[in-house]
C-alpha cells in the first residue's frame, strides 16, 4: 500500500490534481475568478450550483481547446476560445433554466458571466494549448474543484452568519441575531480575505519574502 502511494506521488496526473486543488489553487493563490466567488456565495446551494457549472465549462472547453490546439492560428486564438467557452456557457444556462429554475434565477446574470471568468480563459491559455487531452482533463477537473471548494467554504461561513442556516438547516441557536452585512457584498470581501490569510499561513506560501 505504501509503495503504491509513493509511486502515485510521482505520476504526472497526481501532481496536476494536487496543484489545482491546493498548491496553485485558482482563488487563494492565483486570485482568479473572484467575481463569482463573492457574488453568489451568500447561500451554500448557489455556491454548489455555480461550482458545478464552472467545473463543466472549464473541463469541456479545455478539452475542446486541447483537441483543436494544432489547428488554431495563434493570432486568432483568444476569440476562438471565447466562442468555444460561450457555447458551453449557453448550454449550462439552458440546462439550469429548464431543470432548476429557482437556482438559475438566483444566479441571474452571474451565470452568463462565466464566459469572462478568468479561470476558464486562464486554463485554456496556460494549460490546454500546450498539453494533450488526457492531462487537460485532469487539469480542468482539479482547478475547477479547487475553485468549488473555496466557494463552498466561503458560502458556509456567510450563510451561517447571515441567516443562521446551512443549506436551509438551522445550525445557530434560536437566540442568534442575523448579521445582515454578511449576506451583502462586504461580508464576501471580509470572509474571502480571512480565508486567504488562513490558507497562506497554513501553507506557508507568502507573497512577500520574510525578512
Amino acid at each position: 500500500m505504501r509503495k503504491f502511494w509513493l509511486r502515485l506521488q510521482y505520476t504526472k496526473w497526481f501532481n496536476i490534481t494536487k496543484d489545482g486543488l491546493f498548491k496553485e489553487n485558482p482563488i487563494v493563490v492565483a486570485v482568479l475568478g473572484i467575481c463569482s466567488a463573492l457574488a453568489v456565495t451568500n447561500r451554500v446551494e448557489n455556491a454548489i450550483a455555480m461550482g458545478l457549472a464552472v467545473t463543466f465549462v472549464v473541463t469541456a472547453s479545455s478539452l475542446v481547446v486541447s483537441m483543436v490546439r494544432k489547428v488554431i492560428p495563434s493570432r486568432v486564438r483568444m476569440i476562438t476560445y471565447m466562442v468555444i467557452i460561450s457555447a458551453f456557457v449557453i448550454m449550462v444556462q439552458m440546462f439550469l433554466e429548464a431543470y432548476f429554475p429557482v437556482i438559475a434565477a438566483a444566479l441571474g446574470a452571474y451565470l452568463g458571466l462565466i464566459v469572462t471568468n478568468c479561470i476558464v480563459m486562464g486554463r485554456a491559455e496556460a494549460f490546454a494549448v500546450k498539453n494533450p487531452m488526457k492531462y487537460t482533463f485532469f487539469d480542468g477537473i482539479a482547478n475547477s474543484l479547487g475553485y468549488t471548494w473555496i466557494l463552498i467554504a466561503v458560502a458556509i461561513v456567510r450563510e451561517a452568519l447571515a441567516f443562521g442556516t446551512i443549506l436551509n438547516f438551522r445550525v445557530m441557536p434560536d437566540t442568534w441575531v442575523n448579521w445582515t452585512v454578511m449576506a451583502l457584498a462586504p461580508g464576501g470581501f471580509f470572509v474571502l480575505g480571512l480565508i486567504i490569510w488562513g490558507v497562506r499561513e497554513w501553507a506557508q506560501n507568502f507573497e512577500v519574502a520574510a525578512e
Partner: protein
Amino acid sequence: MINLIEIFIESVLSRNIALIFILGMCPLIAISTNVKNAKGMGLAVIFVVFLTAVINYPIYLLLEATGTQRLSILVFIITIATTVQFLEIFIEKVSPRMYNNFGLFLPLITVNCVVLAVSQFFVNRSYNFAETATFSLGAGLGWALAIILLAAIREKMENHSVVPRGLAGRGIVFIIMGILSLAFIGFTGLSFF
C-alpha cells in the same frame, strides 16, 4: 429626465458595479498598485463599456426580432472583442500619446466582466436606449472611481502600515474593498428630489 439622473447616480454610487455587484475583480486587484495605472485602466473601461453597450443595444433588438436571444452572450462577446481590437488599432494610429496612457490596458478589457455584465444588465432590466447609454456611462465611471480609490489607499499603505505576513499583497486588498463596500452601501436611499 429625472429617471435618467437617478439611474446615473445609482450606477455610480449606491449600486456601484465594482463594490456592490462585485464585478471586474481580476483587473481591479491586479492593476490597483499605483494611481497612474489605475487612472489609465479606469479611463479605458469607461470608454469601452459605453461604446460596447451602445453598439450591443441595436444588435440585441435584431436578435429579439429574429427570436435568437439565447445567443446573446456569444454575440455580445464577439462584438466586445472586435470593438476592443478596432479601438486599439485606431488609438495607436491617431494618438500615440493617448495609446501610452491607456492603450496598453485595452487587450485586458476583453476578459473584464464589467463590459459583458453591463450588456447583460440592460437586457435583464429592459432599459430603453437612453437608459442604456446613461447606465453604461455611470457603471464605467463607478468602476473607475473604485479602482482609483483602491489604488490611492494601497499606495499610502505601502509606506505607512504594517500588515500581517499572510495578508500582505492581495489578501489585504479584500479587507480594504470590504470597508470601501460598506461605505458605498451607505449611499443607498440617497435621493436629490
